[in-house]
């Protein structure tokens, strides 16, 4: 163990954190935005639609992300039409390829997670919402989705951690995020232990922060008697007693 090298790594490697976080946050956001409608289709859509979404998630979840990344980065260039189109500006750039792969992956995983959440929303809740006269979109927006999101939050936390870890694959297409910088440092210093251990510690702190943040969010969103909700309930003026307008028989 060479402590000087470890200190060097501690100074150099954090400059890759920015790219790792950019890739993770952008792909999680894009994946989430895509997955919400897909999850509704998968959970409540017509059988054909549900099957189409399932085939997308199945293929993406059944193949390694590395293969998908190489397919996009190296493979798409083989098609002449792609190289001639305007998308080539984006698709020849490793950053956008990595981002696209990660987003597609995250969308597939999140779709399945949210779908399971949507399916476990109690039926009585949606029936109650229907009986209150809410429209289908209102039910989805105000009732089904918030409940499903709370149910799927622990599983979504795993997906966040998986995405932070998965972003290390970007180093295979020449991007210099944490793993990429670590590999570059190792190839010049020939000291794999020190540098990879420092890189691992950085990843560990990132994933630990993500886990803590998700746990806080879970507690903040939980409905059973937390302090914020109780205070809100106290501040709200008491409802006036409902007046009986219909004559009693």
């Amino acid at each position, binding site marked *: 163990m060479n402590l000087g090298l470890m200190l060097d790594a501690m100074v150099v490697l954090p400059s890759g954190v920015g790219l790792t976080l950019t890739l993770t946050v952008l792909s999680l956001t894009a994946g989430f935005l895509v997955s919400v409608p897909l999850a509704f289709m998968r959970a409540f859509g017509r059988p054909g639609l549900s099957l189409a979404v399932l085939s997308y998630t199945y293929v993406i979840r059944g193949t*390694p992300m590395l*293969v998908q990344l*190489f397919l996009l980065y190296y*493979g*798409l260039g083989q098609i002449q039409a792609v190289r001639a189109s305007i998308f080539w500006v984006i698709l020849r750039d490793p950053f956008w390829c990595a981002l696209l792969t990660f987003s597609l992956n995250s969308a597939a995983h999140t779709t399945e997670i949210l779908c399971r959440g949507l399916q476990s929303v109690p039926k009585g809740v949606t029936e109650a919402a229907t009986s209150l006269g809410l429209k289908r979109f209102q039910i989805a927006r105000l009732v089904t989705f918030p409940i499903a999101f709370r149910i799927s939050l622990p599983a979504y936390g795993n997906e966040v951690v998986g995405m932070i*870890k998965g972003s290390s694959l970007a180093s295979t297409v020449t991007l210099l995020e944490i793993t990429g910088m670590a*590999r570059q440092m190792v190839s010049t210093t*020939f000291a794999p232990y020190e540098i990879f251990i420092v890189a691992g510690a950085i*990843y560990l702190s990132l*994933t630990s922060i993500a886990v803590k943040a998700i746990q806080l969010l879970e507690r903040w969103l939980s409905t059973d008697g937390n302090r914020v909700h109780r205070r809100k309930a106290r501040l709200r003026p008491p409802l006036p007693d409902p007046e009986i307008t219909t004559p009693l028989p």
Partner: protein
Amino acid sequence: MGGFTTQFVVALTVTISLALVSGCLGTAFGLFLAISKGTAQPRLNRVVTAYTTVVRGVPELLIILLIYFGGTTLASTIAGRYVEVNAFTAGVIALSVVFSGYATEVFRGAIAAVPAGQTEAAKSLGLNAWQRWMFVIGPQMLRLALPAYGNLWISLFKDTALVSIVGLTDIMRVAYVGAGSLRAPLTFYLAASALYLSLTTVTLLSIRLAERRYPALGR
């Protein structure tokens, strides 16, 4: 595809054997850790928790790189000359470590899910600790763990692709070499995806079959 078909066949066996060997080693180690976490003193408990936290919080790719390049450095220092660690061995060690980290948590959760009354009943029947594990807790725990355990195998098959980065000639590596030499990356990576997809499908189907054959007891 030219002569790459035979290479793909060989690579397929390499990938499958890598996954099987590291999966079995990881299962054994994970089971051991989960049992020792359930019974032993708090200090050992903390060590096991630290192990699973670190393994599950660090990218698999980094673990593979650390064990391959670090192992080479270590072996060279010990031998006093340059020794290169076999990519297959490094892959088996790295993937076993990853698999055991996740498997420990799966088994620990399953052990906790077996009702305490079962252990108490077994004790009252006069079974010793070994018999309790073999005949009472073990069978129930394994059935409870089966769905999550199956998912671990699917991720394991996908993680084997990462070992190609340190030079193991598995499916991914053959696709990479073929894509470079025949200038047809799309074809080769699509073939690789199809192979991986069939591997994960077979794994998924066998897990479903096992789940139907051994459903969780008393549910």
